[in-house]
């Protein structure tokens, strides 16, 4: 192996060894030390695992219940606002969990619009709808989050479904029922199964939504790992639960590769133009479904920013008089350090911390990811061997990574450095996956042409490689930045009280009583939503032209 290749790999391999494999090994060691586990561990584990599976299954079912008709609507029908609606349904998936949780709180929570409206309408003392802290809240948020997976995957498959196959089957005598069972369903099956597994996996490893919206009584594996590690300081039990979680993840990965990768169908993509709804049943379906989707996805997203600038509750200690009106108090309050607040520092500093962490993450992820992506773009035997290793951190949940850091580097917990390192670990696989195809898509002929025209190797790198990959690089950078900004799972375990991040601060303020705390949480969540939204938009903008270039 050439020195250059060793050099290009050394950085990322050292990083992964230190911050992924070593922590994982520590989890394995601690978690398999059964002497440290109490006698009730097994029934407790089964109970937690059971609930985790139960809520994931139920969430998945509901996600499909909404996602399948939505996929049909968006893939098969042409109507005004279709692309806008498609975009709207995709937004939640890319938003940080704390933003989604805050958005639902702003819409359906005790101080949310819905309850406030009902209270005002019927002169009620207490909020009539209990949302936060229920299983329903968890399920709703999961559907909100993951419906886009079903819409995208099944919708793409529907779009590629050649209408002539159905016509051929018809002329060969297939009734509508047999046409569906023998042709349509088998062709959609890979997309259905992969969407099913993905949605289930995301629901299974969901952390922020359950902690923020469900509260501590809903203990999934992720939440229990967090609670055991942080509240009860029972690291052996947390490590044991992490192992259970990792085994489940492994099972999913095997299932996925068995069920999905094997039966990939080579179908010619055919653009069957979506139809305008014709019959009254189609019209009814389009109207009802698009209205439902619009309300379901837009209401929480709109509630949040509105709630952050409108005061709707009584002043402190004054329950009789309610003040209404626009206000920027919640934003102003962020930069004031009050005694008795959740932190020793003003919450505004959480914003600055988050930005600093995100910047560091971006830099680290690019520095480590670029050489790896460049090497992977022209893979040799070594690269093919190492490729799947780089994706492994994706399989471990953020809470798992956080616990691994605690177990491996517990004595440095006081340092603010662990958070950006964990974020880098999470962003790295994405960064590599964005950069690698871009680098691989540069034909070698371009470099050879530049050389024959007199460019030195350095000039080739500058004139050819860099010019062609700066968009993807920027895109990867924004991606890393956004991921870090919204990361909650690992941060919740690793953050220092004097260096809170925005998501952690939102979580803490949401848990505090009082209108001012609530308002500040809304304000911070709005800021996070706007920044993350801008990041998403920027990535989309960067992606579109470059994909058509090649």
């Amino acid at each position, binding site marked *: 192996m050439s020195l250059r290749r060793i050099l290009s790999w050394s950085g990322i391999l050292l990083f992964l060894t230190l911050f992924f494999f070593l922590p994982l090994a520590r989890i394995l060691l601690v978690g398999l030390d059964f002497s440290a586990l109490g006698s009730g561990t097994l029934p407790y584990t089964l109970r937690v695992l059971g609930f985790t599976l139960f809520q994931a299954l139920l969430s998945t079912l509901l996600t499909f219940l909404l996602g399948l008709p939505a996929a049909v609507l968006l893939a098969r029908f042409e109507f005004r606002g279709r692309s806008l609606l498609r975009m709207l349904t995709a937004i939640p998936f890319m938003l940080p969990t704390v933003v989604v949780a805050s958005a639902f709180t702003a819409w359906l929570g005790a101080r949310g619009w819905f309850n406030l409206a009902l209270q005002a309408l019927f002169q009620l003392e207490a909020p009539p709808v209990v949302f936060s802290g229920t299983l329903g809240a968890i399920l709703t948020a999961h559907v909100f989050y993951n419906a886009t997976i079903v819409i995208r995957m099944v919708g793409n498959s529907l779009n590629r479904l*050649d209408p*002539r196959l159905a*016509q*051929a089957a*018809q002329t060969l*005598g297939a009734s509508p029922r*047999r046409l569906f069972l023998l042709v349509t369903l088998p062709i959609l099956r890979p997309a259905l199964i992969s969407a099913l597994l993905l949605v289930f996996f995301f629901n299974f490893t969901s952390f922020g939504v359950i902690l923020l919206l469900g509260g501590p009584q809903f203990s999934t594996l992720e939440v229990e790992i967090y609670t055991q590690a942080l509240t009860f300081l029972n690291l052996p039990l947390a490590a044991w639960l992490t192992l259970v979680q990792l085994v489940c993840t492994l099972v999913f990965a095997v299932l996925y590769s068995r069920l999905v990768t094997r039966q990939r*169908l080579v*179908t010619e993509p055919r653009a069957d133009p979506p139809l305008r709804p014709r019959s009254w049943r189609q019209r009814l379906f389009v109207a009802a479904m698009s209205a439902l989707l619009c309300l379901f996805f837009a209401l929480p997203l709109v509630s949040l920013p509105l709630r952050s600038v409108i005061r709707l509750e009584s002043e402190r200690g004054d329950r009789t008089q309610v003040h209404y009106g626009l206000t920027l108090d919640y934003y102003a309050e962020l930069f004031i350090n009050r005694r008795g607040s959740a932190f020793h520092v003003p919450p505004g500093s959480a914003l600055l911390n988050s930005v600093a962490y995100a910047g560091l993450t971006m830099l680290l992820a690019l520095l480590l990811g670029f050489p790896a992506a460049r090497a992977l773009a022209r893979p040799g035997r070594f690269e093919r061997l190492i490729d799947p290793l780089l994706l492994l951190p994706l399989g471990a949940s953020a809470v798992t990574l956080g616990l691994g850091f605690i177990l491996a580097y517990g004595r440095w917990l006081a340092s603010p450095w662990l958070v950006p390192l964990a974020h880098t670990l999470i962003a790295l696989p994405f960064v590599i996956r964005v950069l690698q195809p871009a680098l691989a898509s540069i034909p070698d002929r371009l470099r050879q042409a530049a050389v024959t025209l007199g460019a030195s190797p350095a000039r080739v790198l500058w004139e050819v490689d860099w010019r062609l990959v700066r968009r993807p690089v920027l895109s990867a950078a924004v991606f890393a930045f956004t991921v870090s900004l919204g990361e909650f799972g690992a941060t919740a375990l690793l953050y220092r009280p004097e260096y809170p991040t925005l998501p952690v601060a939102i979580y803490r303020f949401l848990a505090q009583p009082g209108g001012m705390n609530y308002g500040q949480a809304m304000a911070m969540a709005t800021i996070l939503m706007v920044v993350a939204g801008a990041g998403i938009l920027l990535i989309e903008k960067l992606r579109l032209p470059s994909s058509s270039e090649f």
Partner: protein
Amino acid sequence: MLELIDLHKSYEGKPLLKGISFSVAHGETVCLLGASGSGKSTLLRLVAGIEMPEAGLVRWDGQDQARLPAHRRNFGLVFQDYALFPHMDVTGNVAFGLKMQSIPREELNRRVSEALEQVNLAGFGARRVTDLSGGEQQRVALARALASGPRLLMFDEPLGALDRSLREDLLAEIRRILHATGVPAIYVTHDQEEAYAIADRILLLHEGCIVQQGSPAEVYAHPASVWVARFLGAGNILPGVMHSGKVRTALGDFEPTCGHAHREGESVHLLVSAHKVQLDPGGQIAGRVVDVIFRQDGFKVLLDNGLTFHLPEAPAVGAAVRLYLPPEALACLPDA
């Protein structure tokens, strides 16, 4: 026998088929020839029952088929891009129609292998359809349509996606199979060579109407309009005006054999065959040779007056020539 009576269909508000009527007798192969976008494929869909006409009837042996859904008509349809089921192997595709008819396994297997033999694909049963070449895929599609014993076979530009030599082979095979089975067929294409090769009868479709029908030889020899003559490449077309019983054109006066009388001063079009002319120093038409292109059975000669002729020997480029047009080389076309 299949009868279509006054079929109408519009697409996005514009009329596409404006009253199509024709019939297909048992054992007959009818070819629908028309430019792309002329509604040929739509017509097949109407017959298949995949789409419904806005007006008109589709009848089989006198029975109206309107209430019969596509899956119960048993009209086979072969698509241009094959439309093979990607999730089934070759056998699965060919057996599909038989399965729909609940044919017992033994007979099903026998008929599948028969159909595969008919299209020269014996032994291909276990292959994935996505691994086959275009020609092989179209053979599978043909076998699939044949296997279930359709009352009628329809071909929607079946050779459009294949290259030339493959096209000729497959065309010969379709011809052989249609003759052997005696299944009536409608064959849709925009390629006149294909139509000549396969059709007992050609129907020319233009702007939603059938503008001419007849055997390939009839249609080629006596195009019914300027459009048909142009579309079939039947010869040179000269605009002219009736002048004392003759057609006056930019290249002189001609006296074509006309089926019908023309008024003095009426504008007509003259069809000048490219084939029936001879080089003759005393000929009516003079021109300078612009280009000479070799053909297997002679030379295509382009003149500076815009006419093209087919001659057995090649004049030199730049040479001035005169051509004799025998009366059978001239025809007048109804104005389009």
